[in-house]
């Protein structure tokens, strides 16, 4: 992908980085909801979490947890939010999937909450059975497939449905 990516740039310019290894990068953001906001992301460019192999998702999560403790203790904050924004409609601003850690204080008034929508019991049941069915029919992990095919060097053509879905999510401002 030749698109300019802020996080790939952070790595190139060594800007704000507090840690990096072969797979993971941790940086303190310079465009942030609050100062001290940390981002943990794979070194390799993936746009959304669905594209990231499980092993790297796990490494990101474990590192995010460690740096989360450092954020708690170094900043003396009273809470943290750990957020993955997946797709433009989720408010994703950088086309590079990341776990973000937002330090919180009791009086910070950040709108990181929602108004609960009470839903009638039967409607919940309809959604639940739909999701159970979809889960049973969910195709295997595409990131895993890709890794496998890469190893075998035998590319499997992507399904058109896949393409459409991913394209609409990858769309960036």
């Amino acid at each position: 992908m030749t698109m300019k990516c802020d996080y790939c740039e952070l790595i190139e310019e060594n800007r704000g980085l507090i840690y990096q290894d072969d797979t993971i990068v941790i940086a303190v953001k310079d465009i942030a909801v609050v100062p001290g906001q940390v981002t943990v992301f794979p070194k390799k460019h993936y746009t959304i979490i669905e594209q990231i192999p499980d092993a790297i998702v796990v490494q990101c999560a474990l590192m995010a947890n460690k740096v989360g403790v450092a954020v708690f203790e170094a900043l003396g904050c009273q809470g943290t939010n750990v957020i993955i924004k997946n797709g433009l409609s989720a408010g994703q601003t950088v086309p590079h999937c990341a776990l973000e850690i937002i330090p919180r204080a009791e009086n910070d008034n950040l709108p990181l909450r929602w108004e609960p929508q009470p839903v009638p019991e039967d409607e919940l049941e309809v959604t639940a059975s739909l999701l159970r069915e979809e889960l049973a029919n969910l195709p295997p992990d595409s990131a895993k497939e890709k890794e496998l095919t890469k190893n075998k060097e035998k590319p499997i053509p992507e399904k058109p449905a896949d393409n459409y879905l991913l394209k609409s999510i990858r769309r960036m401002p």
Partner: protein
Amino acid sequence: MPEQAPLTAEQKKVLQEKLQNLSPEELKQLQQQQCIFCQIVSGKIPSKKIYEDEQALVILDINPAVKGHLLLLPKEHYAIMPQVPEAILSHLFTVSKRLSQLLLRGLKASGTTIFIANGLAAGQRAQHLLVHIIPRKEADHLLEVEEKVVDEETRTTFQASIENRFNELIGLKKQVVPVAEKKPESKMGKSKVVAAEDSPRPKPVPAPVKVPSLSKTPASSGKKKSAVPKPIAQEKVSLDDIASLFK
């Protein structure tokens, strides 16, 4: 449920003393008994189950932000993320990824938000760690927060502080020299955020504040207190305090 008479001052005192004398294990047990989500895990409280395995349970949030809002929880009781063992945390995140896929395909969502709140200040309302997986649509106006440019000086101060603590935690000797001398009072003025499109007009930000204890009920957490910006902690924060929300 039978109505309970309010406790007398004497009874309250006795209870408080009892709570203070509990070992961490006993306290955890007590929290588990009180925890709605532990009762959902054990089946005492019904739920709309979507998926479960040995370590994790996925249910529909009955008070969702939007239709299809999922809750993923570890079956074992943990209050916040730092308490969760690595094996379980790893599992939770691979399941999160699958659930995000499920919402994109099954509900034709155009995005997903994976959201965790650690601590009352972060909006945590249950004493059981929950991973929210929320299907998103364009212009749904959920979780809209503005990102601003953090000035260089503030960022480097925060960065040095977090990096040093992180290096200690992972056993690295390397320590970064903080850019500014640490003077607790003068930090206030230095902590500022400049809006991206604004002319650089310094605005004080509510920086993270340390309070001695978080032994508050969720109801009282809505009260506002005056901000005392102090980006660099002078004392250590107790994660146990943050975790034991309902002690």
